[in-house]
């Protein structure tokens, strides 16, 4: 379990993280989302004790990491791809970290096998691809068989196989009652991996809720309807103040409607329905709706910052 209490980090007068409070529960995969510069990495660094909070505190399984006797059993972290000395081999990199806690060579070999690095374990890390570097980062995080995993963009650079593998790994971790906290920019990946979502923007908490609720909250549900009687159906739907868009010869997208409404409207004009589906809003849409203003702020920071500060 990870707990952040009023976590705040300022650099000069810039607030990287402001008064952030949340709990990352065990037994779930919790996704951590936010635009670039929203403070995700800073938050993870604060949790790991790499940065000192300006105010508030962060704990892992009830204590700051430094207060744990066996930190590698508490947490495994991957913060940045290839944060590894390029001149060292993968195995030696893992051996060095393992040695700190007297973790056996067998375990080192085990995580090498687990992450599919057997073939390259003796190669120098400088020659690794981004994906290989990620796998090695994950291997290092797994060394102590930790209770909590903290991964910043773990799927970056992974091939489809690797993405599928890490998804299975994280799901498995959560299923065992462990805590998984990960950030990613790949919304489609997050959508199938995470159970719970925490969204931050400009260092502030925007949402902290189960994935399902976050999706339901989004108003951007669309109904797809396919009919040979496109014009008739389109007219009647527009007559009911619904936003209709023709996406193909016989297909309409109706925004902000339910299938019930569209079906009844179709019946009222005897339109034949070939297809009627609700595409629940995607995580990406929900996320974009939530952070639109934040992103605008970031791309137009120069002009807007003083207004926002005022």
């Amino acid at each position, binding site marked *: 379990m990870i707990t952040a209490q009023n976590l705040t980090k300022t650099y000069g007068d810039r607030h990287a993280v402001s008064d952030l409070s949340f709990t990352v529960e065990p037994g779930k995969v919790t996704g951590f989302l936010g635009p670039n510069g929203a403070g995700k990495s800073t938050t993870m660094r604060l949790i790991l004790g790499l940065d000192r909070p300006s105010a508030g505190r962060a704990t892992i399984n009830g204590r700051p990491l430094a207060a744990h006797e066996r930190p590698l059993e508490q947490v495994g972290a991957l913060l940045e791809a290839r944060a590894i000395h390029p001149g060292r081999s993968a195995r030696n990199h893992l051996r060095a970290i393992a040695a700190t806690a007297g973790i056996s060579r067998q375990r080192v070999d085990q995580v090498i096998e687990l992450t599919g690095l057997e073939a390259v374990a003796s190669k120098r890390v400088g020659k690794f691809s981004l994906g290989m570097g990620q796998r090695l980062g994950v291997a290092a995080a797994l060394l102590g068989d930790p209770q909590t995993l903290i991964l910043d963009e773990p799927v970056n650079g992974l091939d489809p196989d690797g993405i599928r*593998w890490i998804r299975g790994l994280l799901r498995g971790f959560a299923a065992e009652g462990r805590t998984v906290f990960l950030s990613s920019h790949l919304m489609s990946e997050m959508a199938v991996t995470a159970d719970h979502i925490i969204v931050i923007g400009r260092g502030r908490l925007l949402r902290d809720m189960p994935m399902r609720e976050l999706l339901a909250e989004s108003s951007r549900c669309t109904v797809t309807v396919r009919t040979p009687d496109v014009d008739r159906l389109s007219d009647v739907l527009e007559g009911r103040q619904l936003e209709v868009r023709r996406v193909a010869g016989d297909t309409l997208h109706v925004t902000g409607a339910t299938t019930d409404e569209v079906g009844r409207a179709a019946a009222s004009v005897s339109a034949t329905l070939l297809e009627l589906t609700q595409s629940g809003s995607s995580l990406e849409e929900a996320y974009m709706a939530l952070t639109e203003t934040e992103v605008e702020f970031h791309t137009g920071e120069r002009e807007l910052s003083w207004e926002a500060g005022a």
Partner: protein
Amino acid sequence: MTEVTMTPTRTKQVTADPVSLRGAVRAEWIKFVTLRSTVAVLGAAVIVLPLVAVIVAHNTRHLSPTLDLNDVVASAPLQGYYLDQLLIGALGVLFVTSEYSSGMIRATLTAVPKRLPVLWAKLAVFVTVTAIPLVTMTVASFLLAEAYINRYRTGYSLADPGAARVAIGTGIYLVLLGVIGGMIGWIVRSTPGGLVTYLGVILVLPGILGNVVGHWGKYVAEVLPGQAGAAFISIVPEGYSLRPWPGLFVMILWAGLLTAAAAYSLHRRDA
């Protein structure tokens, strides 16, 4: 690759020891010996000593009035230390700053979140891996050179005044320089910044202070770590305001102060 499933039931499959200095030392030892670059630099620093000793011995095997005093005293064969000041200092800087430049420091400090054991462990490993070969080699180089010289004229033995101090001390001086480099590394963190600071403090600053700033500049220059240490490994007292043993004391004091500053920096600052 097929999907991998973790152990289906959560049984503890790994036992980790509590964070300890011993564990940190083991990790730093592995880090030091598994890098080709560190081993190569240390190897070069060690090899330079007997090579220079033999060259100096050969060139000074016959006494002549053209020889400089520094080339005929007991410390003459150990002039390889000039180059080693650079190599060992850089080794010290790099052993620390490579953690920061590669980002490895995050993994290191996640494994040792109390932080300071990492500094003590690096210090212990560095002193061990450099002191043993360097002190052995400075003494061996002295003996080798004097044995060569003895075939032509009377050379020095370790029993001569100051000879043992210089033979052993040159190794110690180099180790202390490496420690100073490492501590600068902890404070500066960047590799180029660390190297420039080290070279500035050890090699450039004394010259500038001594020659440009005037009379008081000379006194300040004499108590900088490089100059104070050089007084310790010199046979010729000229040009040094510190006597040998006070020189060593001042150098150790510098190393101590920098270690304290490095420990404070590591403990307090964001990693």
